[in-house]
């Protein structure tokens, strides 16, 4: 089994005494310090970060799945532009997380339905929905706070649901993919002491407009490549709600998408660490034509918002409207950003 605790502390780390990252058992209140006052409507340093324990990884159907746990976390569910804080009430044992990806292309899948059933010695400890969520150290993953049943050997039965076509279009070799659910089982040891020994770090510049570095989590991360490495030609960028939008033009329309002109592909990502921002409704307008910029998973382009257009002229202006901001559950530091997102104009 692939298990290890990891923490790569980001910029802003304070206190040389915690090099190595390990503190002793923390009380819950210490593990969940008060939120900073006057949080910016943007990405910001959270009050703290924690390490995680690798549970293991496995393959189920066409999916590769890694699982890990950490201390229970507060997080925010997002519906439209509203956030709803999921508080910690002391009833849960761990924040259970998974990352799901296509093993061949290492494309992280953001729109599967995930559930986990935790059993210990055959008895149910918990079964729950896992939210698609975004955190600074973890990036895009699925997670929830789950109940446990003390120390011991657990089996996590992880059900990966199909990805609805209406939710994210597939193109290229991803056509017809990710339509079958699969179940993975991973056995792991859990103990409160291991959990409580996970690295824990508070930041004295919490609230500053910045983001922690991502951790090494033994799974690919859903990030948008730097502009120089993006396929196609970059024609402009814009920001809205602290999110970055990179507009590229591909000379051919990916297989499976109707249209025979050029293909506008818009990559939306977080600032500082370029994490993919999925699950938006975007619309575009170009040279008098309006169209949906459809969420699309493509093996070459990755997750993007795309539309086939007849031709992009050099002086065209693309307007992008965010009709629905990223419907992703947020960890601290992301819950104020990507909610109110203004209209963008990009000179191509």
């Amino acid at each position: 089994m692939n298990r290890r605790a990891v923490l790569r502390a980001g910029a802003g780390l304070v206190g040389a005494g915690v090099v190595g990252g390990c503190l002793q058992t923390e009380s819950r209140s210490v593990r969940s310090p008060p939120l900073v006052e006057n949080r910016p409507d943007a990405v910001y340093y959270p009050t703290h970060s924690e390490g995680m324990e690798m549970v293991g990884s496995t393959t189920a159907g066409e999916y590769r799945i890694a699982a890990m746990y950490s201390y229970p976390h507060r997080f925010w569910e997002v519906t439209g532009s509203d956030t709803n804080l999921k508080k910690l009430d002391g009833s849960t044992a761990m924040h259970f997380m998974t990352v799901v990806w296509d093993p061949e292309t290492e494309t992280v899948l953001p729109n599967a339905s995930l559930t986990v059933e935790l059993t210990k010695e055959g008895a149910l400890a918990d079964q729950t929905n896992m939210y698609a969520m975004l955190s600074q150290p973890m990036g895009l993953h699925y997670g929830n706070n789950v109940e446990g049943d003390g120390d011991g050997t657990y089996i996590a039965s992880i059900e990966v649901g199909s990805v609805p076509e209406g939710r994210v279009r597939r193109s290229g070799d991803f056509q017809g993919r990710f339509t079958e659910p699969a179940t993975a089982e991973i056995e792991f040891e859990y103990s409160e002491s291991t959990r409580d020994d996970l690295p824990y770090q508070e930041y004295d510049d919490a609230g500053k407009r910045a983001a922690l570095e991502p951790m090494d989590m033994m799974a690919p991360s859903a990030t948008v490549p730097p502009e120089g490495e993006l396929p196609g030609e970059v024609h402009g960028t814009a920001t809205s709600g602290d999110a970055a939008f990179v507009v590229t033009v591909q000379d051919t329309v990916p297989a499976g998408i109707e249209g025979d002109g050029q293909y506008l592909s818009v990559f939306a990502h977080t600032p500082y660490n370029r994490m993919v921002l999925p699950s938006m409704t975007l619309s575009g307008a170009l040279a008098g034509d309006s169209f949906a910029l459809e969420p699309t998973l493509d093996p070459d382009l990755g997750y993007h918002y795309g539309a086939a257009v007849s031709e992009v002229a050099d002086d065209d202006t693309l307007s992008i409207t965010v009709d629905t901001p990223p419907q992703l559950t947020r960890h601290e530091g992301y819950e104020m950003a990507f909610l109110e997102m203004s209209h963008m104009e990009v000179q191509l």
Partner: protein
Amino acid sequence: MDLDESLPRRRFMKAAVAVGGASALSACLGRAPRAGEPVPEGVSDPSELPQRQHAWNDRVRVDGDGNVHLPRHQAFLYLTLDGDGPPGDEARETVETALGTLDRAYERSNEGLIYSLAYSPSYFDRFGDPLPDSVDLPEPRRLSGFENPEFDTQDALLHLASDRGDVVLEVEEAMFGDRSEANGIAVDATLGDVLIVDDRRTGFIGAGMPAERQAQGGEPISGIPDSLPVPDRSPLFMGFEAGFSGNQATEDYVTIREGPFADGTTKHVANLRQRLGDWYDEQSFEERVMEMFSPGHAEQGLVEGVGDNLGADSGIDAFLDPETIEQSIEEHGRVGHAQKAARANRDADGNVRILRRHVESTDDDLASLHFPSLQRRLSTFEDVREAMNGDDLTDNPAIRQRVNNGILEYIFVQHRGNFLVPPRRHRALPTPRPA
């Protein structure tokens, strides 16, 4: 598990049914001797009983609004035949004799016993002939892209229901245990002579019963948060009434019209776990109304308390057109459970297509529910479930496969099984083409 004699009567009966067995029965009878509370007897000639095994509605309690109240205590016995191949005439006669004993022993009512015996596609596979085209009974299958249930492929399902917990227990002991009498009637042949109980599940339904059962020994059962939030008067763990008469198919409607199994019906039974922490602790009453009924129900304040103000109809038909749904998703980021499902649960004339008879359960100390649904064609249930999945609504990213999508975040399908409930004349180990 020991039965706690200090429990109030109704909880004691419920606990006894959940535990089952001869000792539970004797504890029930010790506490409430039959002589003091006789159970009404059945008919001397079982052939007088109606052909429809699923005709329950005129034999149970009905409230002032016309809503049917199912018997409080229920058991679902999943049965298998010994060996391979089709059963013989001797086994068939044994089953018919055993069922005849039940018919004579107990009045067919909530105060006596209501039951049905149904058969799975696997059972009919034992025969060389397929079922006739007049019966639509596929094998159970996964009905959403995010569930992975175990399929109940046992041969038969015996569904027992009574307001008397001691009756349910007595029937089980008489049919599968050592009890030689059923309500004073001698038992000559038993179902257990032919069929083995592969799985036993129990359920209950009635205002107040979930609240009473949400904790055991002071601890919430699995799926129920520490706040023990289930409202006192709710018949279901989720806190609302369901199965309003105006939103149920009639027994007539779900009845097979033609062929050898005319007067029968098909039955889907799902078993679902519930996890209600976030349902209650993270959501307001209005949000629960939005997700259970529709956002429009919350906007217009249509639901009070557990919803008994709704009378005989949830009023869901006013919130089904695609524009209404799209608009409420845009405004509230949510879609209602009843709203989604009802889209596929009406025929061209507006008739409801399926008859739901679900009950709650605390089997294995988990908050769960057993969800039988009756329909003329089994695939009608599959259509309704597909509509309830709401995959077609997830193009708005606020609606995720489970999140903001009715009640799907809180329920987890564990089992699915499909059955044919034959008419009474073919209820004993029927062939696929009975004469």
